Every structure is written in C-alpha cells, then in structure tokens.
C-alpha cells in the first residue's frame, strides 16, 4: 500500500466515522442533558464507559476475530471502523455537553429565514450573512465535536495494529522499522499533520471569540421515545462490544493462565513503572490544565493556549516521533536516555484531554454554592471553617481529584509515547507497553491473566485513593 493510499484510506475512514459519530453523539447529548434521575446516571455510565476501556483490551479482544476475516479484508476494515466509532462517540458527546449555546440561536436563524421571504429588499440578509449565521448556529458545537472524533479516529493505532487495519501510522511504522531514518519518517508525517491542522483550525475558528467556559447550556431539549430507545440501544451495544466481549476473552484466559503470573515476578515492577509514569505525567498535565482553564475564565483568549495544546492534539504517534527526532539531536542526546522526553511527551499528549475534563467539570460545577462554601471558610468559628472545607470537598475537590485520577489513568494506559521504539528508555518499559508488544503473539491464557492484573491494579489504586479521600473528609467532620 502506498503512502498516499494509506493516508487516503485513513482520511476516508475518519471522515465517515466522525460524520456518523456526530449524528449519534447529538442524539445522546440531548438525552443526557435531559435529567438527573437514576436512569440518567445509568445512561451516563453506559455512554461514557468506553472512554475508560483501554485500546489494548479492545485490540486484544478482537485480534482473533480480525484474523478470522483475513480472507475478507473489507469486512475487517468495516469491523475496525465500527469499533472506532463506538470508541470516539463518547468524546463527541462530551464536547457537545461542554459546549455553550451557539451565538446564533435557532430562533434567530428562523427570523432570518422569515426575513428572506419578505418583499422588502432592505430587510433581507445577504446570502453570505445567512450562511455565516447558519454555520454559527448549526455547526457551532457540532464542528468541534466532529473534529475531535475525526482526530481520534485518524490517529488511532493501538487497535488498528492488532486488527491489521490499514492506515498512515502503520505505513510510517513499517518505514521506520525497515530502516528509514527518524528525520525521514518525521518528514513523511507532513501530509497527516497538515490534514489534522486543517481540522483543528476549522474547529478553532468556529470557537474563536465566543467560547465561554461553564456558560449555561440552556434548557434541556425534548426527546422522543424513539430517540431514548436509540440511545439506550447504542449504550448497550457499546458496553457489550467494547467492554464485555474483550473482557470475556481476558477472563476466559485468566482462569487457566493465573499460574503464569508466578513466572513474571517483574510484572509488578513494570506496573510500578507504569504507575509512576502515569502519575507524574498525569499530575503535570492536570496542574497545567488547571492554570490554563483558570486563565481562560479570567478572559485570556483561547488562541493563546493553542501552541501548548497543538502537540497533544496531533496524536501520540506524531508527537512521539517528533520528540524522538528532537531529542536525538547532538545537543539533547544526553537527555534522550532519561525519562524526560517520555514524560514531556505524555504531558503534552494528555494536556488537551486534561483541559477537556476541566471544562466539563466546570460545566457541572455549582459555582454559586462553591463560592458560598468558600465564604463560610472565612468565618472565625473553627467548626464553620471545617464545615466549609467539607462542603468545598463535596462541591469541588472530589470532582477535581477524580478528574486528575482519570488523566493519570489515561497516561498509565498510553502505549505509543512510552514505547521503547519511541521515547521509553531501557529499563523503564511500562506494563501496558510490554503486554501490548506480546499481544501480537495472540490470545494466550497467561497473557490474559497479565492483562487483567495490569488493568486491575490502577483501577484498584484509583478506587482506594477515592475511598481514602472520602474517609479523610468524613473523619474531619
């Protein structure tokens, strides 16, 4: 497959996935905005769960299924595109949920269309103004959501490699492995980078000047019974295909493969390296995103932050290759074998994700209540101050801790940047990277057990930390 074909295929697939994805995400987000009942919370969990299912689990679960389609490459590509769609829709949904109402309301658009029908020429808008209004109304939140889904699909490598799906990352990886030097490989990224920049640019132009963090999203739209059925059906399908099916493969192998754990005493050490890596990079991204969102709230134009967010928006593979090329320059060569490039890469990669999580948290944060709780903290009575701390924890702190832990979890599960082929120094291979490399051998019971432990340990750590924080708050009261 030529590079042009690989790139064109990725482009076509991403375009289709993002376009279908935005239609689904639009329906989901309408329903999710609708209410705060227990069914609403179940739906939230159902729809957002794929965000936390690591790519290595999905790729591992579907590796053999993909092999069974070796004589039917089209169906294999279709299966991969379908899984990618399920993986990216939650992100599109979150962006739609985080978006403020469009600067041009539907009512304004309707009035404009009525004005076009009038006989008074002076009352009519120009065609250009009408199109601009339509874009600012209809595509205001949709385009950024589409762009995010397009980028995620365009950059996806983890599942694609295990399912042997074609695309530009696989092409560049092959060239790198067969001897093209790093500089040459980075040069070949020019076209994919330009494509991504065009998509990011379109979304940025749409948001420029009118983005308001935590602005009101308006009243929840009405939803029909068929829409609700569709969203619930979609949620169930995503849960089954992205979590239950791969999970079943892992569990099935785990029962017979647990004995292998004893033969891998280093696994816990590699999980430790992964946790250290995830915690460091995640924490740095979380702190930096906090500072960025804070400045956004104070009125700093979003464009100021684009240079910092851009490397992460271009994807782990592009970012990793570019940093590897930079750190292999003579001046920086001594730093290449340290954890610095790997941590810098992961920090930059997670930064846009951390910002999105912060914006979402800000969207649901009850700022008035938090302000009042903060005022209570100024009281001279120590009991009131303690109470203020407890309230602030519930209103603000708990969500911040959860957000930070989520970013750390994503960093732990990252496979490209800490890979020894890119930025991972010898002796610092994380457990997910090591297992991902072994997954090319197929679904082996022992490997399934290792995968289960590798995923379970950080999840248990997150639960323990959340429970610990909750206990501390209770204890303080």
């Amino acid at each position, binding site marked *: 497959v030529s590079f042009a074909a690989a790139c064109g295929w990725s482009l076509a697939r991403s375009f289709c996935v993002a376009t279908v994805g935005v239609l689904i995400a639009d329906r989901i987000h309408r329903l999710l905005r609708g209410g705060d009942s227990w069914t609403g919370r179940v739906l939230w969990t159902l729809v957002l769960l794929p965000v936390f299912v690591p790519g290595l689990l999905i790729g591992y679960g579907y590796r053999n299924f993909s*092999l069974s389609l*070796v*004589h039917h490459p089209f169906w294999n590509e279709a299966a991969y595109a379908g899984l990618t769609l399920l993986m990216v829709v939650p992100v599109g949904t979150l962006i739609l949920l985080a978006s403020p109402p469009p600067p041009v309301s539907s009512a304004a658009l309707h009035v404009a269309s009525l004005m076009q029908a009038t006989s008074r020429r002076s009352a009519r808008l120009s065609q250009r103004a009408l199109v601009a209004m339509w874009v600012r109304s209809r595509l205001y939140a949709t385009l950024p959501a589409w762009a995010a889904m397009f980028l995620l699909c365009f950059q996806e490598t983890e599942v694609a490699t295990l399912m042997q799906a074609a695309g530009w990352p696989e092409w560049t990886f092959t060239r790198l492995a*067969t001897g093209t030097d790093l500089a040459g490989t980075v040069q070949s990224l020019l076209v994919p980078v330009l494509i991504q920049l065009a998509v990011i640019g379109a979304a940025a132009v749409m948001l420029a000047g009118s983005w308001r963090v935590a602005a009101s999203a308006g009243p929840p739209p009405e939803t029909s019974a068929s829409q609700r059925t569709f969203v619930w059906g979609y949620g169930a399908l995503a849960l089954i295909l992205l979590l239950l099916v791969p999970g079943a493969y892992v569990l099935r192998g785990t029962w017979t493969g647990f004995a292998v754990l004893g*033969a891998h005493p280093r696994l816990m050490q590699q999980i430790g390296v992964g946790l250290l890596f995830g915690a460091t990079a995640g924490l740095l991204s979380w702190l930096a995103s906090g500072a960025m969102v804070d400045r956004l709230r104070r009125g700093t134009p979003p464009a100021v932050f684009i240079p910092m967010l851009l490397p992460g928006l271009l994807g782990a593979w592009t970012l990793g290759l570019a940093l590897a090329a930079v750190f292999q320059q003579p001046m920086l060569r001594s730093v290449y074998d340290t954890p610095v490039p790997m941590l810098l890469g992961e920090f930059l990669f997670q930064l846009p994700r951390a910002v999105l999580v912060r914006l979402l948290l800000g969207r649901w944060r009850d700022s008035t209540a938090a302000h009042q709780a903060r005022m209570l903290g100024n009281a001279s009575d120590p009991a009131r101050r303690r109470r203020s701390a407890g309230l602030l924890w519930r209103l603000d702190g708990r969500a911040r801790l959860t957000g930070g832990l989520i970013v750390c979890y994503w960093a732990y599960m990252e496979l490209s940047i800490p890979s020894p082929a890119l930025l991972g120094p010898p*002796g610092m291979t994380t457990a997910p990277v090591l297992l991902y*490399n072994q997954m*090319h051998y*197929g679904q082996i019971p022992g490997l399934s057990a290792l995968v289960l432990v590798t995923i379970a340990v950080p999840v248990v750590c997150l639960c323990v930390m959340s429970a610990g924080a909750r206990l501390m708050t209770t204890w303080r009261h």
Partner: protein
Amino acid sequence: MTADSSRRFPATLLLLCAAVLLALGWWRLSASRADALVVYCAHDLMFAEEVLRDFERDTGIPVVIVGDTEATKSLGLVQRLIREKEHPVCDVFWNNQLLGTVELARQGVLEPYRGAHWESIPGRYKDDAGLWTGFGGRMRVWIINTESPPVMSLDLANPVQLDGLAIATPMFGTTLSHYAVLWDQMGAESLQQWHRRLIDSGARFVAGNATVKDLVAGGVCAMGMTDTDDYFQAVDAGQPVTVTMLPIRAPSGETICIPNTVAIIKGTQKRAEAEQLVNYLTSAESELRMARSKSRQIPLGANVSRTEIPEDVQPLMDWAAESVDLKPLADARSACLDWLTREFAP
C-alpha cells in the same frame, strides 16, 4: 495566614508530598538501572526473560531487557542499533536470527569476542572474527491444518490456488531470512515473479509467524510457513495441525535453519559483564535448556550431547545439518529488504 491561604495549605502540602514521592520513585528507578547490563532481545520475551533472569540470579549482574514486537521482529532492534551506533545504549544484542546481526557487523556496530564456547559452534553459525556467535536455532517449517487440509501442492514454484496459504510479512524476522535465501538462489527477478504469483493466487501476508500459526490452527488458512517454535506451540496446545513436521526447503533442496545470535555492542562500558552473558547463552547448558523449553530451539554446539536432547528436537538437528549457509547472504538480505519495502510500503 489568611483564610484563603490556610485553605490552600493542605492541598499544597499534598501536592508537595506527591512531588517528593514521585521524584523518589524516579530516582530509585534510574539508580536501579544504572549498573544494569542493557540487553536488546529480539527472541520471544516469553522464553528469553526466564533465561536472562536466571543469568541475573546466577551471576548477580542486573539485566535490563528491551524487547521487540512479534510483528517487526527483529528488524526494529537492528535498525535501532544502527541509529544508536554513535551513542550506544545497548551492551549485548540477543537476536533471534542471523542476517540482521551480520548487517550490524558490516555496519561496525559490534565488538569481537571469541567466548568460552565459540570453538564448539560450527563455522556457519559464527563470525570468524568473533563479532557474533550463534546458538539455539529454529527451522522454517510448514504448518498444515488437519481438519481442512490444503488442496494445493507444496510446490510453490507453480502456485495455482493459494488463498489458504498464510505467510508472515517478509520484511521482518525469519521470513526475511527465508526470502533472502530465495533471492540468492532464485535471483531477484524470479523471486519477485514468484512473490507476485503468490499474491495473485490469494496467499495472505500477515503480521508475524505466531499469526500464521493462529490462522492455520484456527482453520482460517489451510497451511502456512512458520518457525518450529510457533509450530510446537500449536502442537502443545492440541490444535489441529499435522504432527509430522515438514521442513521448508530452498530451491537447492537445503533446509533453512536460523540460529539465535548474540553479540557485544561496540562502545559498551560493561565489557566483562557482556562477555559473561555471551558465555552463558552459548553454553551447552543454555542450549539444552532452550531445547527443552516450549520453543524447542535446536542446539548447535558440538558440546551438547544428543542423548540429552528431547526426542521431538532430535530430528530437527539432522535437518539443521542440511541447512543453507546464511552467512554469505547479507547482500541478498539488504537488496531483498529494499525491494520488499518498496513493495509493501512504497
């Protein structure tokens, strides 16, 4: 202290503690690998890790292993070693094949060492100057499904209908060595025509020999070309593949036996430790151990007693004796790889 700053104090303290803990973690991790022998290992880590951990335990020399993926086996590490030539990170390279190591020797990446067991290894499996030493080989073999046996002939010179044939992408690993043998014996043009006939006849090129094994064992493909270690995995798992092994033969009629190779990287700061590892891997004990492992590596050293070798490995030793001498094929490998790269990723 104002109320605001007192409220921020616990969070700041918590962050400070986290920062100190993380810094300590990184410091400890960096310190633990400072004295370690860095081994780039293209052999399957499932098997290699155990051997290297035993080396650690027996000698007290800590080892850091950098592996490769099955899909790019071992080419990724060979290219990386060439890139790192001026600033070597690796001390010892354990390759799971030979021609990539020969290429490294040609590029001046390796340091000579005629170890304690160098003499016992046959000439075709070692470098004359001691730049690398072979041990524990694997054969290229057919793997055939017993439930849906192939209808085609194994004579690939005239493929008719091969949509049931699976082959690993020949740019990597032992399949690249296999293609280099064909390139050398058939000539570039004939090989290219043969390769295109395979594609036209529906043969499937997939990522790695383990995938070939899975496709055949799963009945998706009727037959495939793989290595003995993958073949034995299917047999051990009771999968429906022929129990009688059939070696793949080159046009000359010779078999293709691809040894592991071990080499010391030029510029290593741990020469003495690296020599110990070379001696450890090429010893009769290690060869015997690898022959008894699930990967059934074929002992190549003359100092390994045949009676101690498992029964299912013994016939492999006879086939290995009939194998192509791979050492002179470095040029064929380079030329073939250039063509394959243009073919698969133009």
